[in-house]
């Protein structure tokens, strides 16, 4: 553990985690076993109506994938967090979240009454429960990011899950550019063809980091991000 590390913890398979990631810190997510999926949504903690916006993120950077250098934009033209390290190269911003119906259909029924904490959980309900803890609800359920997963799109628009996108030990690191309410769960990707209910854990490392320097990789990855970082810095001035 480096001296900048504040703490580490594990998000168990199928479990949910939330935290207000402070500006000046970074969250490293580690796929300890390989094949994990970390679904995540993001809000400006000080004003949660400002939240992660999938289209603004994609169109500002002309991407349908996230990786090192990517910024995650809010609907207000600011960068909530940015990807400063990434050993995977492709994280899915379009596939969305599983729900109770799709999990039941795919994996069958496994209730708490018989399976205790091995019961089948789904991403949508997990987000809603965690949103509820922060006074938020169904109106605040936004499109999510799926870290470690990849969805390919063919010329005719067909979407397919790209297997073995992430290996054991793979990681991605998000630097908070604002104070970001981050909600994350480890439910399986909704397009993952794996027939069994086998969510994987992730390890989280939170550490102190300096703010984005003038030559920062995320700031300079496109002109749009240079302006996005200026608008984000103005918010704190």
């Amino acid at each position, binding site marked *: 553990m480096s001296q900048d590390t504040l703490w580490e913890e594990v998000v168990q398979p199928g479990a949910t985690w939330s935290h207000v990631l402070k500006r000046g810190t970074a969250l490293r997510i580690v796929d300890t076993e390989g094949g994990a999926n970390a679904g995540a949504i993001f809000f400006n903690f000080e004003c949660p109506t400002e939240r992660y916006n999938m289209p*603004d993120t994609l*169109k*500002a950077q002309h991407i349908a994938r996230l990786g090192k250098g990517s910024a995650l934009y809010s609907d207000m*033209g600011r960068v909530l967090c940015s990807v400063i390290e990434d050993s995977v190269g492709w994280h899915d911003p379009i596939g969305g979240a599983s729900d109770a119906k799709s999990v039941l259909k795919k994996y069958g029924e496994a209730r708490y009454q018989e399976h205790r904490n091995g019961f089948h959980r789904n991403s949508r309900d997990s987000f809603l429960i965690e949103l509820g803890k922060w006074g938020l609800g*169904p109106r605040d359920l936004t499109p999510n990011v799926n870290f470690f997963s990849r969805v390919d799109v063919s010329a005719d628009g067909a979407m397919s899950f790209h297997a073995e996108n992430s290996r054991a030990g793979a990681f991605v690191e998000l630097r908070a550019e604002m104070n970001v309410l981050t909600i994350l769960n480890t439910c399986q990707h909704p397009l993952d063809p794996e027939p069994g209910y086998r969510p994987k854990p992730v390890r989280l490392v939170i550490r102190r980091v300096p703010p984005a320097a003038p030559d920062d990789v995320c700031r300079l990855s496109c002109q*749009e991000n240079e*302006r996005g970082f200026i608008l984000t810095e103005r918010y704190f001035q």
Partner: protein
Amino acid sequence: MRLTPSKLEPAHATYTAEVPAGDPWIREVRKGQYLRIVDLHGNQAVDTLFYNAHDYADRYSAQDTIRTQANLYLTTGTRLISSGGNVLATIVADTCGRHDTLGGACATESNMVRYALAKGHMHACRNSFLKAIIEWDQQRPGRILEKRDIPSNINFFMNVPVTPEGKLTFEDGISEPGKYVEIRAEMDVLVLISNCPQLNNPCNAYNPTPIQVLIWEAAGE
């Protein structure tokens, strides 16, 4: 691309309106009714949202819609899925062939990011959406719609292909004057449209133009 014309005659529509460039439009469409949006002059992006008219928290979800059909582009046969997993409406006719739901709506803030910090004054879809829902709320106290109720929308007539390398590209429109898309409401829905005022990219051919909206009664009525 598969094109599917409609059999419905404009003369039989029970509601017709022209929505000027840059204006919003909001109206309830009842279960079974048909809504047609006509790109009168071609290459006009029509930013559109659907809500369960009886529960606005249950609203159009771009991710659920594309994942359910395992395809990025919307056309005839696409079921528009809500955040609660319900079918709000179905696209039943389409003479354009492909519609976008990744590009979202333009906003004054995203214009500053995408084009220049000095572009923040330009009219944008999310301003139109907000204006429309404020007026809708004023007419119906207690049915509150706010900014957080504006999720990622559909862009009818907009062409935003994704490449195999994961790049998102804004291409010239594939729509032409008179092309239309027709939607059957599968439940009572509230439809919110912003006829896009964007002048900074080719989505409106740099010249936003009016659209026409028509509604037919449910089959058999």
